[in-house]
């Protein structure tokens, strides 16, 4: 068996707050990802899912740093790279697609220029050749009339078209890993469907590995092979998508799925997880979910559960649910 394209081993991120105290938005995150695989990183706001991806690509804010652990891409530990080497990784290997492409593109440069810039950063070609590549890329991502759209500025294009331009920009570096951070959250549902289909198409074509960062669990079921659920900075459950949706074993995963409104059935009453995520600077001493968990016991409040492999999934829970849906 070949080694995975990317694996994280107990990665922790530390951020020094203004007040001087250090907080840890990501703690001991571990997961791995194969070439051509789509992994969904899910959780609610503040759970550390975006921060994990920023850490992997060396984009942490100035006050942040990787505190411990490894993030290995194709045999290289990214945590140990210099900022300059990390820049090369971003030019070649890891590409990002962010939420809200309209504000994510520079308003005073044409979209073609911005894509061509990525081409030039990646390889030593003339600007002219890069502009042509930009048009080809726009065509590849399904932009109508690509050669004239390449001369347009972001404010002239719709949100969906800008998101296509952003994906073209990401693909300009011929990356191995595409990180889509809430890439469809700002879009209307019919446009979202188009963008999801496009990303999946690119994945299949180029053998791209995709990390989908999202809070939308309905979307995950449709696009992902593997799901990593995060809560309060930690990975709490990792499973193949069918396994997770069939029988979520961590009470938080189960709660999330049960609180999800569904199109295909009307629930008499949505289940509710009471309470809220604890603030990052006041984590409980045991399992961070224990205060909201209906199954929590004394050990949950005292000891942080380790992420361990149990029958094809990884789970961090002292009181996991049954393996099969009852």
């Amino acid at each position: 068996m070949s080694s995975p394209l990317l694996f994280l081993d107990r990665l922790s991120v530390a951020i020094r707050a203004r007040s001087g105290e250090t907080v840890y938005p990501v703690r001991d995150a571990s997961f791995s990802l194969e070439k051509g695989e789509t992994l969904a990183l899910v959780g609610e706001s503040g759970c550390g899912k975006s921060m994990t991806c920023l850490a992997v690509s060396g984009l942490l804010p100035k006050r942040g740093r990787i505190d411990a652990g490894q993030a290995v891409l194709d045999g290289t530990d990214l945590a140990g790279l210099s900022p300059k080497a990390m820049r090369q990784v971003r030019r070649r290997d890891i590409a990002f697609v962010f939420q809200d492409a309209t504000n994510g593109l520079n308003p005073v440069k044409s979209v073609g220029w911005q894509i061509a810039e990525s081409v030039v950063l990646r390889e030593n070609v003339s600007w002219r050749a890069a502009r042509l590549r930009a048009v080809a890329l726009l065509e590849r991502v399904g932009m109508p009339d690509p050669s004239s759209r390449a001369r347009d500025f972001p404010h002239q294009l719709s949100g969906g078209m800008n998101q296509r331009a952003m994906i073209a920009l990401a693909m300009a570096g011929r990356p191995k890993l595409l990180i889509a951070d809430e890439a469809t959250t700002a879009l209307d549902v019919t446009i979202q469907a188009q963008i999801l289909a496009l990303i999946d198409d690119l994945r299949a074509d180029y053998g791209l590995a995709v990390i989908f960062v999202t809070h939308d669990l309905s979307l995950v079921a449709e696009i992902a092979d593997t799901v990593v659920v995060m809560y309060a900075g930690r990975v709490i459950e990792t499973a193949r998508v069918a396994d997770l949706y069939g029988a979520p074993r961590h009470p938080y995963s189960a709660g999330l799925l049960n609180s999800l409104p569904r199109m295909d059935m009307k629930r008499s009453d949505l289940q509710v997880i009471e309470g809220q995520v604890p603030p990052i600077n006041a984590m409980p001493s045991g399992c961070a979910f224990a205060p909201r968990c209906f199954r929590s016991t004394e050990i949950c409040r005292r000891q942080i559960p380790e992420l361990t492999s149990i029958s094809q999934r990884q789970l961090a829970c002292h009181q996991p649910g049954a393996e099969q849906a009852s």
Partner: protein
Amino acid sequence: MSTTADLKALSARPDPAGETIAETRDVSKAFVYRKASLTRAAEIFNAVDKVSLCLERSETLAIVGESGCGKSTFGRLIAGLLPPSSGEATFRGHSYATLSAEDWRASRRNVQIIFQDAAGSLDPRLPVEIQVREPLDLHEIGSRADRAARTREMLDAVQLGRHLWQAVPSELSGGQQQRVVIARALITKPELVICDEPVSALDVSIQAQILSLLADLKSRMGLTLVFISHDLAVVRQIADRVAVMYLGRVCECGPAGQVLSHPRHPYTKALLSAVPVPDPAVKRTRLLLAGDPPSPHTPPAGCRFHTRCPVAVGICSQHAPERQFINGHEVHCHFPENAP
């Protein structure tokens, strides 16, 4: 959970279902999107274009559609917060346009609106208890003691922990802020509440809390709800009836079960098929709509959906479809799905 006495106080209203509480007749709202200049007249567009809808007491009507379809504008028209450019909007049989100043003030008490941006609709410096009481003070309802009692009752009803009553909005989470906004909207015991994307900004576990709170308050207080949302899965959980809008017009309107399970209009079908289903076992053939919706400023002639419609033919680009009823469910399409 609060006591049954509280509940009685909140739900002391008869519940005659089937009665029309609010209605719009051919209501339109035009906005200017380019101002007039020396050389050209102002360019206007109809954000809402001749929409007729009837709202029955104690029902939840969901208005769904994508950005720019006019659903929020329509919500404000029903609430009487915007004067229509043509047509009329009525509340309990009276057109807002003809209300006396006093009646209009009374209608403000009876019709409330809740927005997505809870933080933005609260005063950042005032303790939330005062903000929830404010509508009572403004309308001078009851004695001082009554108002204070009712405020406490309402804050309990939205399940905001007592330790948070003196907090200012920035000290609350998004879900708690939305609870405060709901309490403030409901304290005057309105009959009609317009909720404009009330849960869109919230995380899913909090979203479920707010949805079940709304459903609970609705049945306890006999509210009529207009629920504006882009999220069909959320709508599925809460709506009795659904109206689907596209570029300022209604495509389809009917009982939620029918519209969402057996859509007749091709747009509704495409919209539904685009909604992800959180079950990897369900594999569907997705109906992908090509292209972007046209700009609402320059809607296409004829049926507004024809530029993206998979079944459109010549007539669709020339004539706007008439309203027709299939099994008591209204469809605006030349070629509606007729299968039962």
